[in-house]
């Protein structure tokens, strides 16, 4: 992973972005049964297999990509792969998220912190546009939105990208835990009404795993 080997010390290259996605894939595969169990309680018991199937396909796609593919195009390819392989709610949502993030990066070879923030904000905006979930609806948005907010705040207050990503991961995990007492208003969990209360949202959980993978990707030394 070459995230910290660039001239611009806080910028990520395509390899770092690919490393993030591979790290996310590994974490999701490892937590597959747990994610499915969370989905069994308030959904249809497939979130673990959905995300694992999709990210495994992303890894195959990454192997096929040209060495010179810029970070933005890596994310677009990954998003397209998720759309084409996941299905369910998480496929279009995560696919859109990564594609929007990729588009925000354009053809740049390096992702500076400001661009990372812009990309992730575009990702969240894409999810909200497509899925219409508000914060508090008990979805992945409840992990993603605070994570991106924390990233921006940390970077703006001058933290190095590694620390900012750690803050984002912490915010995502906090947001994930905050879904437990929420009443679901989106996705399958909404069908349960009051019975959705007391369960952690599977999509917020996988979102936290993906933010944790970002932290590891930008701070390979940790």
């Amino acid at each position, binding site marked *: 992973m070459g995230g910290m080997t660039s001239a611009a010390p806080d910028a990520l290259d395509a390899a770092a972005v690919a490393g993030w996605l591979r790290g996310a894939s590994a974490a999701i595969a490892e937590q597959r049964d747990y994610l*499915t*169990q969370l989905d*069994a*309680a*308030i*959904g*249809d*018991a*497939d979130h673990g*297999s*959905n995300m694992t*199937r999709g990210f495994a396909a992303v890894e195959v796609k990454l192997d096929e990509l040209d060495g010179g593919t810029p970070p933005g195009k890596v994310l677009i390819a990954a998003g397209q792969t998720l*759309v*084409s*392989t*996941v*299905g*369910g*709610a*998480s*496929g*279009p*949502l995560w696919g859109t998220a990564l594609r929007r993030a990729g588009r925000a990066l354009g053809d740049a070879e390096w992702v500076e912190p400001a661009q990372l923030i812009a990309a992730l904000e575009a990702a969240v905006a894409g999810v909200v546009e*497509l*899925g219409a979930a*508000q914060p508090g609806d008990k979805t992945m948005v409840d992990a993603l939105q605070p994570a991106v907010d924390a990233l921006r705040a940390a970077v703006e207050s001058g933290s190095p990208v590694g620390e900012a990503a750690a803050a984002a991961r912490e915010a995502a995990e906090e947001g994930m835990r905050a879904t437990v007492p929420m009443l679901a*208003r*989106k*996705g*399958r969990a*909404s*069908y*349960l*009404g009051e*019975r959705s209360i007391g*369960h952690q949202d599977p999509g917020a959980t996988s979102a936290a795993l993906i933010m944790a993978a970002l932290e590891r990707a930008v701070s390979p030394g940790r």
Partner: protein
Amino acid sequence: MSVVAQVVKKFINDPDNVVPEALAGVAAAHPGLVRVDLENQLVLRADAPVQGKVGLVSGGGSGHEPLHGGFVGTGMLDAACAGAVFTSPVPDQMGAATRAVDGGAGVLHLVKNYTGDVLNFRMAAELAEDEGIEVQSVVLDDDVAVQDSLYTAGRRGVGATVLAEKIAGARAESGGSLAQVADAARKVNDRAGSFGVALTSCATPASGSPIFDLGPDEIEVGVGIHGEPGRRREKHASAHDITEMMLDPILEDLKPASGSSVLAFVNGLGGTPLIELYLLFNEVNRQLGDRGISIGRSLVGNYITSLEMAGASITLLVLDDELTALWDAPVKTAALRWGA
């Protein structure tokens, strides 16, 4: 709602291969009726695309058989896209189906209202329109167990899907325009309501154990078709009382005038014997009669299922002459067939 360690045995080879192997079985069992695109996991009408006819595409997660593949054929669907078990298919599949059934008169997507299905079909429709195929979508959301609201995912699409596929299919077969076929499907959705009750859970091939566990005297009330728990858990009751539990919210939603004629559809969720479904139909018939509603058409059997879940749903569709005629029109599919 703990995940129990119980094992549900299945006739499978590899959990990851259940859908393609079953689709190969469909192809082998119904050669004159359908053809199967294994790469895209599509069941296609044997003679698709039918030139000049509106193409009807539906689809969704697998595990609801005969829905949707069993409803492909003359007078009903032109294509069904099969996702993984309980997981919406992806836009690529829906796109391939749309192209395969486009006979120049446009394609209607019939979509059950689940976030995954709606989003994937929406993406597919956008791609198809980019390719110059006219696409309309009708989203079915007949499950009255779920409260409808602008701020939620809304109601689920369940039993009315079968009726909409039949009735819109008949409208397409009779030469209806894309707008007319879509109108027929919307009319079904507007005039239908459903409610489901589960006596047991079910297990996906991937997990192998039941999604939830129920005590020996408990039932889940207000379930959908994905093995999910329902709106509430109740004590098991007589068929009479359970029927009342299901009919009350449907009738409250539909508010059919006394003297109305309905299509009454008692659907098995997969693991309930037919003898019990007919017993429930008898209850439905008696209780509707008591309320001045008559059954004009009926359907009893396993048509939209949740794997091996023991349970049943009731769907009522308030009939008029147009809907009755479209229901009666010939249909020739693996699971519904008459007049042909």
